[in-house]
């Protein structure tokens, strides 16, 4: 099915939630509002003609200094029909929360944990939102643009005094 047709179906079922769409290199995406992400994803998974039963990836992009700063990106695929779609949800820096889709696809669990770990975006409704790649007590969110590439400034003392 043509991805733009899927976007039209989303617009029909959830009026007002699709705030934009685009395509590049024959891959298409829909820009959604934050409000009903989980419902839209459930619809995309369960509708038999769309059947996006496979969540490939959940990630985020930091567009600093643009506002809204982050964009959470979902890559979806349908094993039965073979079509792919990307969903992008802009997220403000001040209110960096979004609904979790772990209730729709179980695989979203670790993806969302990694996005939280790297960007600080909180996923409401996630069963166990804690850091996954960085140590549990790490401060700061590494993949944000204002996080230094060399890492935090710390002084390492191999032979501490006293």
């Amino acid at each position, binding site marked *: 099915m043509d991805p733009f047709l899927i976007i039209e179906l989303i617009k029909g079922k959830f009026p007002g939630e699709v705030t934009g769409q685009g395509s*590049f290199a024959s891959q298409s995406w829909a820009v959604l509002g934050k409000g009903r992400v989980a419902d839209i994803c459930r619809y995309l998974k369960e509708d038999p003609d769309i059947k996006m039963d496979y969540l*490939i990836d959940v990630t985020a992009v930091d567009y600093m200094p643009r506002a809204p700063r982050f964009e959470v990106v979902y890559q979806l695929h349908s*094993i039965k029909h073979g079509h792919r779609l990307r969903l992008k949800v802009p997220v403000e820096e001040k209110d960096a929360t979004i609904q979790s889709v772990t209730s729709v696809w179980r*695989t979203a669990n670790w*993806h969302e944990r*990694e996005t939280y770990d790297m960007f600080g975006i909180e996923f409401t409704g996630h069963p166990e939102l804690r850091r996954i790649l960085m140590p549990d007590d790490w401060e700061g969110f590494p993949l944000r643009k204002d996080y230094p*590439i060399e890492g935090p400034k710390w002084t390492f003392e191999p032979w501490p005094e006293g």
Partner: protein
Amino acid sequence: MGPQHPSTHGVLRLVLELDGERVMSCKPYIGYLHRGSEKLAEVKSYQQIVPLTDRFDYLSCGNNNLAYAIAVEKLMGIEVPERADYLRTIVAELSRISSHLLWLATHAADIGAVTVLLYTLRERELILDLFELLTGARLTVSYVNIGGVRRDAPKEFFDRCDEFIKILPAKIDDYNTLIMENRIWLGRTKGIGVIPYDEAIDWGLTGGSLRGSGVDYDLRKAIPYAAYDRVEFDVPLGTHGDVYDRYIIRVEEMRQSIRIIKQCLKDMPDGPYKADIPAVTLPPKDRVMADIETLVHQFVLVSKGFEVQKGEVYVGCEVPKGELGFYIVSDGGTSPLRMKVRSPSFVNLQCLPRMVYGRMLADIVSCIGSIDIVLGEVDR
């Protein structure tokens, strides 16, 4: 089950709650091998990221480079010549065989069949020798780059590759005689770590783990890339979704890889080995030392890199572990704005607690081996 353990295939920490021998809960802790590749990619030029991609799944570097190169080429709209496609496919399939050989070696050794390790690594040495002949490096080859491949393959490479694929099928039969119908092997792998069809898709499994549950999803067939639409091969599927099925599938995938390489060697076209786009691909090396313009051209491309138009693309490729995807967002500069690596081992490992719940401690080792993880890819 701490980060230092011979059977965890790397630095993986599992916090287990046991009731006697039964596993009541299993929590994986990863991140011990996290090197910040995605952050590094934001400061390196597109060509400089190719060696970074080698280090994700360090057992099958040809495939990682290929996935990245195809993503950037789709972003830029570059077409590579046919010879490059076939060379890339050969290197990708050799990497696949090498990865599966090592997978079999470690999986069998973890379960107890140590002899298999000695046999398979012998054949893997032949593949590493082939890589050394072709690229100069045994493991992290960085052979596929954006626009084509790095060097043309000498005639000796094709001859030796031909010899190698002639001897390999008999060797695979050898490995099978060791374990395929062995009572202990069957007892340790049949019915263990079962994932049914729907759950496999829901958990986001890919690769051998997914096809073991009967889902026919192989990116080489679903969204063909390189020369995969011009060769014939089968995709083995399992039925029960247990550890034994995943083992059978990967052994059969090795045979299919041999088939693909044979066809590629036979159909290898002549022609250039990289696209001739002066803004992107390096000039021929013999000209670089001969005239100043070519030297400047080489210098600018290597030091500054090339600029990529604004856009974003997600491309997934079938590496031995599953679907390796690159989501690259470009804002018009010489480095990506964001490069997300969707690594199959990271997603497949999520399924481990589900597989081992209620089973014995020894089954964890079988399950980790059957998911086929490489911690370099899990942590990036």
